[in-house]
């Protein structure tokens, strides 16, 4: 579809806004319509949207700095641009100053590659990284000039598809999206685009007369992992019944089975503006087999998939040559997850010696081996090392399936300080189901003991400079996790937990970074995470009242949501705190995440049993899953389902 460049209208706005580099495009490795320029390695001159190609807008509903560092979007950009006759173009939500000017001058949301309107693309893929981004999505669609509601869009509009973790319960957003890709979108995007192009036929390049939406939606419903809400009838009992044969009764999440088969992104776009993770990223592994009962990633992507050492090192070498980045970050849930971790780190250190490129690893430590690997993976200037015991007491950790005793954690922390770290971070959740005052007090006690051990591990001359950050976040029950049936703790409980922590006596050097006193953001997250289609009106009303960039400092206003809820006859507190009965249907059960209801219910039962196991708590030993004998081996995963899909 051909579309004119809006650059001449964008350019006069740039002197008037903060960080104009957000809106420039033309970065190194950005792919424009002139592909030869890209493969030749030269810089690209931005140009108008190319004629005769299928154009995909990859829309990240946040500012450039946050979206440009999203690795999933970089992977999709890489895959789509490799398809014959397709181009991927990036679009980000402008900051409020630019939005105001664009609205004043009736300038629609544009893509960076062609500076053409997002609405002129064939497909808009919207990232849904977290629940609080939902109002940004509406702002982006509206700024693009698209009707917010899918039912009001037609064949002349691009298809709007959602991807990302939030799509695991797509129901609150179904009103705004034509389709969702469930799971790892890169596993399905090629099939999705092929089906869409086939359904569009000659209309790909002819924007004037587009086909009706229904045949297109029917074609997409046949792609595995794709949920097309319009083709399901929502029943009062929360079930979703397919209206056509092509739509599966349950939509199964897609997964990249073999990480080595997924070509790494070796020439990502190199931003001008400083972005959140301003470095070359190479994935070491995906998935997490720890199966912590609060963790959605662990439940949905439990299959650990690793990339071969040769592929990691080659990706790093090619990537650094193509980007010129000064930092290489390895992505993995834990360093020790990769069987070749030592070899990889040794080879990368060799590759980077005599250069100014730093090596880092975006990960948390779960074992002493992880600490040793992190030491290999970090340069001289070290940021804080992160540990996530999640709960202060062994009782709660056991219930969460975190096989970690106090002594084991303290030993990990001690070993980190002993090898040179000067700051570590301990992360905890508060407001967990079954949490007692003593569990919260145990957070402070654990931090105190860990810090004493850290001080003893270093030379006396360094002790004054040691620091430890203790960070607490509010527990948010998430779909497809064993705790999906539990409610969030009440506002009063969370406030009391905060007070308990604040009143704890801690040594100098231990900094408490406690959850927000009002816990307001976490309540909105909890309210939306497990909601049904009724939440669409709530989201729309909140957006109309000004809810935008809700995670940015100074932007969030709880009143927007309270007023919106009142106007929809809903209560944020009721939505956040509601408990589902074990036999009660859930809004997301037509999504097959790979963890069956039976399995999750059994895990929830084990969680409750572990909480009740007073003997274990008193002994301070570890009881994981159904095991209360002190063994840390997790129980077999596939209880009543959850088998790996082929």
């Amino acid at each position, binding site marked *: 579809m051909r579309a004119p460049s809006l650059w001449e209208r964008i350019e006069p706005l740039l002197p008037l806004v903060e960080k104009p580099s957000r809106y420039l495009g*033309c970065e190194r490795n950005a792919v424009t319509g002139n592909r030869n320029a890209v493969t030749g390695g030269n*810089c690209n001159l931005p140009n108008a949207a190319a004629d005769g190609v299928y154009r995909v807008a990859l829309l990240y509903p946040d500012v450039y700095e946050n979206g440009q560092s999203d690795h999933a979007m970089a992977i999709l950009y890489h895959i789509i641009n490799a398809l014959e006759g397709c181009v991927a173009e990036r679009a980000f939500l402008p900051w409020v100053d630019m939005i105001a000017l664009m609205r004043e001058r009736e300038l629609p949301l544009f893509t960076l590659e062609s500076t053409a309107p997002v609405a002129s693309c064939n497909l808009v893929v919207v990232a849904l990284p977290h629940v609080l981004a939902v109002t940004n999505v509406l702002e982006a669609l509206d700024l693009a000039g698209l009707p917010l509601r899918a039912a009001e869009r037609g064949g002349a509009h691009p298809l709007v598809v959602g991807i990302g973790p939030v799509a695991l319960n797509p129901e609150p957003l179904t009103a705004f999206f034509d389709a969702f890709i469930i799971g790892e979108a890169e596993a399905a995007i090629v099939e999705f685009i092929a089906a869409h192009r086939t359904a569009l036929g000659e209309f790909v390049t002819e924007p004037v007369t587009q086909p009706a939406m229904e045949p297109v939606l029917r074609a997409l419903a046949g792609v595995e992992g794709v949920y097309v809400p319009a083709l399901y009838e929502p029943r009062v009992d929360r079930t979703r019944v397919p209206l056509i044969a092509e739509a599966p009764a349950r939509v199964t999440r897609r997964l990249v089975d073999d990480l080595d088969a997924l070509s790494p992104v070796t020439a990502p776009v190199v931003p001008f503006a400083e972005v959140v993770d301003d470095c070359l990223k190479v994935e070491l592994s995906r998935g997490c087999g720890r199966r912590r009962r609060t963790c959605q990633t662990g439940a949905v992507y439990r299959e650990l998939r690793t990339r071969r050492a040769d592929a990691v090192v080659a990706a790093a070498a090619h990537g650094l040559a193509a980007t010129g980045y000064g930092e290489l970050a390895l992505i993995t849930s834990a360093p020790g997850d990769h069987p070749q971790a030592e070899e990889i780190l040794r080879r990368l250190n060799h590759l980077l010696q005599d250069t100014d490129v730093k090596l880092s690893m975006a990960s948390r430590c779960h074992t002493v081996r992880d600490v040793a690997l992190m030491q290999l993976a970090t340069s001289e200037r070290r940021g804080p090392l992160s540990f996530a015991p999640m709960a202060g007491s062994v009782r709660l950790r056991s219930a969460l399936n975190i096989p970690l005793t106090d002594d084991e954690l303290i030993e990990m922390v001690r070993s980190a300080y002993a090898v040179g770290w000067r700051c570590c971070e301990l992360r905890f959740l508060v407001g967990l189901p079954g949490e007692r005052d003593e569990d919260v007090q145990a957070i402070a006690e654990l931090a105190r003991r860990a810090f004493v051990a850290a001080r003893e591990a270093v030379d006396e001359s360094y002790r004054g400079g040691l620091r430890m950050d203790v960070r607490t976040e509010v527990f948010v029950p998430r779909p497809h996790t064993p705790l999906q049936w539990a409610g969030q703790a009440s506002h009063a409980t969370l406030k009391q937990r905060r007070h308990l922590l604040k009143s704890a006596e801690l040594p100098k050097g231990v900094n408490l970074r406690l959850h927000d006193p009002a816990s307001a953001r976490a309540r909105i997250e909890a309210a939306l995470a497990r909601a049904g289609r009724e939440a669409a009106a709530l989201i729309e009303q909140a957006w109309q009242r000004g809810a935008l960039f809700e995670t940015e400092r100074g932007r969030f206003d709880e009143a927007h949501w309270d007023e919106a809820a009142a106007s929809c006859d809903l209560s944020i507190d009721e939505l956040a705190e509601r408990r589902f009965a074990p036999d009660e249907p859930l809004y997301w059960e037509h999504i097959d995440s790979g963890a069956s209801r039976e399995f999750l219910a059994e895990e929830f039962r084990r969680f409750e049993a572990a909480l009740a196991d007073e003997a274990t708590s008193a002994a301070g030993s570890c009881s994981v899953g159904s095991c209360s004998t002190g063994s840390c081996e997790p129980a077999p995963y596939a209880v009543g389902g959850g088998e790996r899909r082929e």
Partner: protein
Amino acid sequence: MNETVFRLRVNFQKRDRLRFLSHLELLRTLERTVRRAQLPLAISNAQNRSLRLVPGPALPVGAVGLDEYFDLWLTEYLEPALACERLQQAGVHGLEIRAASYVDPRVKGLPATHVHAVYELALELAADGGLSRAEIAERLERVIAGGLLVIKRKDKQKTYDLSQAVERAFELREVAGDSANHVIITLWLRTAEQGAIRPAALVTTALDGLAGWELRSVTRTRLYEDEERG
């Protein structure tokens, strides 16, 4: 630092969309460009290993630079033309590498030496007249003769001594446009004790309150050191 012998001074242009980069963003872009160019970079052996690249004085965001510089320390001699070619290949659109030459590694840094600059500001005047060339000149002369320029940005206020910052009398010339008249103001400025004055701030202060004009572009056409003056 590993054996550093060669200090390459690179002359480049910052134009097109790149003019909207801040000084820090430009520095990051240059660092990534020199890494991609695979030059024999000198790396410091200090706690925090880093390449040694020093850019010249900052350009205001939005201004085009036609005669910009950065210094780069190398461990091996590389033919300047070859270095330019590699840098151009590794660059981005809007970054034009013009020339390179070696300088004595002991000389002072660019921000200390290249303190003289020539700017051209293009003003678009409304077609129906109103604002004349003579009025613009008179306003500018009055501000410069005042001696001090106070600039407020956000919560900060800075006062510039124009007797130091403005090196010689400005020039004005008219350029006929399609539908409007354009005036080019040429300013010779020097980095003073208070820092570098923004030429756009000088002109907008001078023309404050007058209608019928719009600042279309700011271009630093030349950057030079004391010996080159005049």
